[in-house]
């Protein structure tokens, strides 16, 4: 699964696909390929929504100055 950044990309790509499909001069093969891609993108996007439980972390600085995001009990 891609990150939620991927969700934004998926939505933008889906819009582009719908716009392309609305153009009549598009070759039929190409239209079907776009449709297939659109369905796959939709499936990914829905995957984001169904995803996992909220992850809670706490940001801390360790003695050597490095940052650490440790899991936090909900």
């Amino acid at each position, binding site marked *: 699964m891609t990150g939620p950044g991927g969700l934004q990309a998926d939505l933008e790509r889906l819009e582009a696909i*719908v716009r392309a499909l609305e153009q009549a001069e598009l070759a*039929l093969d190409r239209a079907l390929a776009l449709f297939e891609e659109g369905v796959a993108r939709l499936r990914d996007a829905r995957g984001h929504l169904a995803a996992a439980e909220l992850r809670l972390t706490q940001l801390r*600085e360790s003695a050597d100055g490095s940052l650490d995001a440790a899991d936090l009990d909900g």
Partner: protein
Amino acid sequence: MNLEFPLDLPAAEDRPFSVTEVMEGARQLLQQLPVVWVQGEVSGFKVYGQGQWYFTLKDRAATMSCVVWAEDARRMPARPEDGMTVFARGHLTVFPKRGQLQFTVRQLIPTPEGGFHALQLERARRALERDGLLAPERKRPLPAFPACVGVVTSPEGAAWRDIVAVVARRWPACELMLIGARVQGADAPRELCQALALAARFPRLDVLIVGRGGGSAEDLQAFNDEQVARAVAASPVPTISAVGHETDVTLTDLVADVRAATPSAAAEKAVPDRRAVARQLEAVRRHLTQAAGRRVEVGGMRVRSAAARMGAAVEGRVRDAMHRADTARRGMDAACERRLHGGRALADRLGAALDALSPLRVLERGFAVPRDAAGRVLRRMAAFPAGTPFRLRVVDGEVQARVEEG
């Protein structure tokens, strides 16, 4: 109180006192008076020489000359300004050179209304404004789908619990990161600055909430600290200020990219609602199948007209093609449903609620849409040559704008 003038009245045959002697006697007499608190309005404030302050305290019927010696002035949290009402603690004396009564102030504190605190706040606000930190054009839009939401607040506070509850309900597909700091008391400003600096160094954050639950004006003081406000302004990612107080606006509210009235409201602004996004995806799915269906329809029509032109020789093959095209069109919707739903009825999850992803909702999240005079949306840099006038649609109206020259 038994005050005695330190000089005996002269007998007629004695020499008269000098003016200096009488004024010195008066001074000694006044210094027997106890130290008192006086409430009054400051006027004619001036700073002289080594840093001593002179001003007049007045009320409706009387005025009193006051001095704060430089050494005491340095201990004061801020200079008073004309018009301010203060409590001044000190003692009466005389200023011999002018034969004037003078109040020597050792301590100066604000009255609840219009005191130092309000003054310091206004000074800080002006300083932030001077540095451009309050400018509307600094405000950044919030990310649409944040993967990591930072929260600078107290680990023990209600604010953190409220934010966790809202994000868990709306957008669980993310990481919620606590960056702990005390939010009230003397250490709060320093700890908030440290937490904000820590957050600024962490590369994975997409948006940062800074705040606390409701409290009295005093409880919220740390969020009126100029250094805290500057640390919020310095955040590399967009910020949401959430100080639980509807009436007062704090300095962090002013510098943050977005202000929320409560921590829960901040969480709602920080993340989208997955149900709304599901509705948006459903709309996209409809567009996709409709567009694809129409495209296949056009294909079918072309095949038909080709068939008419080409005649019987190729009729069989054409019929096959037509059949395939029709089947594809009919199958489109069903195939899409099958692939997407995996047995789950989407309709169940889609309420009849308003579409929360309407353009207005997007505008509410801080986005704006530039359009030209004809109403066309301007999407690219090329549409904005210097000097171009355009209109900026924001959530509650439209702003006339112009691209700056060079």
